[in-house]
């Protein structure tokens, strides 16, 4: 079995960019992704969709097509429909593909697992018809589906992009129930001078808002006391804004108050993480090339800290150059020179973050939900149950698993992890950093006995020398 120079988990912008750069440097590259095609979430299905849908999605999505095309031309071994379930140092990467488990060996491993929605627990958020704004994006990109008369709830640029796309598709949202306040924007203005380096993105954002305003989509600001209810599915959203109560009927409610790194794979490999207070999320500890504290394991893209698709591309290239130098394929000097352009672009992209993170912060009532609100969707554990556990002496997230089963369902704490950390930190008056996060153990995706039995041990243990 081939031992690759570099294994990459995730074929989004960071993974694709890293694969291209690594292949250029003469490394043998394996690129794994869960989906049938490359692009990750942001560039889902890019290159495969009809022109009309492409026009709706806009220029930033088109960038993904260029990247995917470049990767298709490069000497990269693809592993689509591959679900990673374990990482062992050395590296041995266990995954399932086509109903069978398999193992991939690589010298160096790059995790480019991207971002996921920041959990947004609200009363009624588990009802069918309630989805993430990101989910609506994916439905549009991959399947050409658009929700009719949806209510978007939360804050952040993705809300405006999605609303504009829905308008272009002839499916005007019912309303935008926005949760950022004037105070948030006022605090964010302090970061605007720095953000002006990313003026193209700011201009794009303003353009989206004009599109939404021209279409007359109702916008509510500083919404609070938000709840969703219905008989067996979402039927209405209730909230308060500008001193009044509001009720909007709809079939689809789309939630979003930012994205956070998807750290499941990194955590399972024992990578150290730190709390990023401005992004309100855990991020892996890395050096400026993306090397984590696990030797040979690198991280790039939104999985390393939220900075967007273009930044992810830059980080992928930078990490691949670091890896190529680590393997002795290029000199440190060449590595540094070749990384310069990517570092400049990365600096431009990250300049926007302080402004965006401050202008569109997480919704306080979702960070600290009502006692009755479910925060662990899998096991239906409420915020109140976690608070009670804290009161009974439960100190950390892993103890909480034993107290309440929170984090022990199929998603393995992906959805509730940050909520549990927030709740326990609040209950004990401790920082999120001190509170910590669930310990994540493999398998990080389900694997059946049948799939394991189909693992061709003889093929997997023979190595090419």
């Amino acid at each position, binding site marked *: 079995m081939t031992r690759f120079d570099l294994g990459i988990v995730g074929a989004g912008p960071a993974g694709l960019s890293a694969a291209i750069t690594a292949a250029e440097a003469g490394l043998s590259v394996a690129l794994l992704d869960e989906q049938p095609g490359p692009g990750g979430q942001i560039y889902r299905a890019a290159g495969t969709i009809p022109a009309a849908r492409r026009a709706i999605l806009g220029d930033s999505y088109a960038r993904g097509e260029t990247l995917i095309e470049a990767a298709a031309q490069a000497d990269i071994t693809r592993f689509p429909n591959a679900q990673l379930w374990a990482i062992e140092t050395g590296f041995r990467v266990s995954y399932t593909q086509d109903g069978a488990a398999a193992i991939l060996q690589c010298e160096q491993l790059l995790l480019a697992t991207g971002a996921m929605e920041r959990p947004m627990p609200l009363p009624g958020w588990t009802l069918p018809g309630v989805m*993430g704004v990101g989910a609506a994006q994916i*439905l549009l990109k991959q*399947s050409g589906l658009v929700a009719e008369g949806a209510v978007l709830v939360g804050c952040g640029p993705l809300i405006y992009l999605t609303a504009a796309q829905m308008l272009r598709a002839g499916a005007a949202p019912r309303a935008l129930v926005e949760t950022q306040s004037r105070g948030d924007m006022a605090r964010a203005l302090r970061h605007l001078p720095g953000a002006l380096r990313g003026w193209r993105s700011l201009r794009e954002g303003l353009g989206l808002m004009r599109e939404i305003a021209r279409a007359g989509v109702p916008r509510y600001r500083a919404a609070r006391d938000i709840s969703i209810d219905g008989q067996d599915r979402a039927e209405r959203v209730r909230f308060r804004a500008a001193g009044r109560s509001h009720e909007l009927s709809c079939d*689809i409610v789309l939630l979003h108050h930012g994205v956070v790194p998807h750290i499941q794979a990194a955590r399972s490999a024992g990578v150290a993480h730190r709390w990023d207070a401005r992004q309100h999320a855990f991020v892996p500890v890395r050096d400026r090339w993306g090397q984590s504290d696990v030797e040979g394991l690198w991280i790039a893209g939104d999985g390393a800290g939220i900075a967007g698709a273009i930044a992810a591309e830059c980080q992928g290239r930078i990490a691949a150059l670091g890896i190529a130098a680590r393997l002795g394929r290029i000199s440190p000097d060449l590595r540094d020179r070749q990384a310069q352009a990517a570092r400049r672009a990365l600096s431009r992209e990250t300049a926007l973050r302080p402004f965006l993170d401050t202008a569109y912060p997480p919704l306080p009532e979702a960070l600290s939900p009502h006692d009755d609100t479910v925060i662990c969707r899998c096991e239906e554990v409420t915020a109140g149950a976690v608070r009670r556990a804290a009161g009974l002496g439960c100190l950390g997230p892993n103890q909480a698993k034993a107290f309440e089963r929170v984090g022990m369902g199929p998603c393995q704490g992906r959805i509730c992890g940050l909520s549990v950390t927030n709740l326990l930190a609040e209950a004990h008056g401790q920082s999120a950093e001190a509170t910590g996060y669930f310990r994540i153990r493999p398998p990080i*995706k389900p694997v059946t006995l049948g799939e394991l039995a189909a693992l061709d041990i003889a093929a997997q243990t023979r190595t090419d020398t």
Partner: protein
Amino acid sequence: MRRIWRCSVKTGLPFRNLEPAGTVELRLDGRPVRLTAGANLAAALLEAGLLHLRASPVSNAPRGPFCMMGVCFDCLVEVNGTRRQACLLSVEEGMEIVRPGMAGTDDAL
């Protein structure tokens, strides 16, 4: 007891396909259903108005797709005998889909 979806003020289904395509026949809870050929399975079910994909094992609460990216596991359905995330699968003719925990299926509470 059959659930009857109540339409809101708009007529029609919650999702519209910008480019409707041909369908193939599968079986859902033992009954034939037609879904968009080759589409993402969770998306195809949503397109057909099937937002309710399972009953939660804890309280029987109705659940459906939430994240569409393999993170939340709320779209778990039994496909040809194995529980899989519908958002990571594609529609194939003849698939046997059973919605876990719903009335009439084996592990309904």
